[in-house]
């Protein structure tokens, strides 16, 4: 076998093996998207209920509470990044990092100090490689988030938020995550969790409608104190679930195009290999014919 032919055969073989892997990953992700999507939907009622309650309190009561009031001066902002643990998901984690860059540039331009909280091994790796400091890192299970993790992150953030800025607390909390729109589209999104910005799904009350006066039990302050961590947790859990669903979708798409590319490579190399084989045969034939010619003309 000619050297050229052997090289092509090797390349075909390697493309085929790669394709097997990417194909398997594509199928696994495809089967997990549905489950992840279901979890996003299942957590919907809870986060909607919490958000409604929070916005009701924020709209209908004029209580001074850190949850509802803007701080006069923001010294420090917390940024939470939701990335994946594993790669091979296209631009999934890169998108988050890029969004984060823009957000942080904006915050810094406003004179705010930024502290980072990272979710997912990819973000952690990005930060370690660039020798940037992160306040806390959570890894593992980004493709199947658990509520306990959200609770832990929520507790950490709320504790920091309640702490005064002079003692290292934060005045703002931003999250950056991939929102799952559908299987082909995931949008990186930056949301300011605290202080409350806009609350989705609730319209501002019209001036004409009588606002219901809320009764609080036990006390308005206590209710808000209890509501704050619940709200943060539910938003974080929702972000984690969305991010997980997006991760599967992104990986499925990335692996699909990888499999397609492998297919293309295999076709190209098969053509080239055929060509090489054919030209080898042609050369051999012409050598034989040439040799026979030489022999017969020598006899004469």
């Amino acid at each position, binding site marked *: 076998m000619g050297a050229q032919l052997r090289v092509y055969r090797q390349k075909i073989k390697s493309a085929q093996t790669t394709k097997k892997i990417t194909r398997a990953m594509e199928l696994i992700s495809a089967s997990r998207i549905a489950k992840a999507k279901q979890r996003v939907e299942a*957590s919907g009622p*809870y986060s909607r*209920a919490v958000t409604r309650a929070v916005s009701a309190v924020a709209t209908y009561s004029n209580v001074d509470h850190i949850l509802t009031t803007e701080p006069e001066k923001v010294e420090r902002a917390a940024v939470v990044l939701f990335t994946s643990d594993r790669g091979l998901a296209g631009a999934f984690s890169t998108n988050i990092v890029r969004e984060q860059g823009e957000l942080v540039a904006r915050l810094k331009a406003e004179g705010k100090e930024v502290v980072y909280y990272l979710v997912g091994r990819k973000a952690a790796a990005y930060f370690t490689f660039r020798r940037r400091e992160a306040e806390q890192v959570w890894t593992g299970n980004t493709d199947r988030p658990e509520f306990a993790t959200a609770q832990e992150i929520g507790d950490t953030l709320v504790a920091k938020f309640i702490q005064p800025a002079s003692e290292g607390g934060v005045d703002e909390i931003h999250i950056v995550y991939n929102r799952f729109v559908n299987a082909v589209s995931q949008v990186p999104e930056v949301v300011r969790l605290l202080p409350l910005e806009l609350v989705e799904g609730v319209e501002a009350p019209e001036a004409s409608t009588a606002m219901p006066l809320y009764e609080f039990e036990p006390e308005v302050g206590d209710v808000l104190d209890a509501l704050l961590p619940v709200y943060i947790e539910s938003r974080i859990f929702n972000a984690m679930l969305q991010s997980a669903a997006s991760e599967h979708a992104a990986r499925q798409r990335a692996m699909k195009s990888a499999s397609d590319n492998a297919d293309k490579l295999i076709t190209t190399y098969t053509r080239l290999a055929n060509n090489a084989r054919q030209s080898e045969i042609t050369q051999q034939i012409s050598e034989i014919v040439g040799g026979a010619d030489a022999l017969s003309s020598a006899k004469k």
Partner: protein
Amino acid sequence: MAELTVSVVSADQEVWSGAARQIIARTTEGEIGILPGHEPILAILAAGEVRVTTTDGASIVANAEDGFLSVEHDIVTVVARNAALA
């Protein structure tokens, strides 16, 4: 007769939802009963049962923990981190 639209949700799913005549829940201040036409309220739940009497008279009991109850225009939402039908 006016009725309440009730939903009981936990962190990862909707536990129960439907129409009801009455709800009794345990808040940190004590038990509270809610009938249609109740004023808007937001209360913190203590660990305990939430009893729902549906419009056809059946009684549904859910264990709710670590959550709150909100009533607004006859829409009642029981939100708890952990909730399950008993």
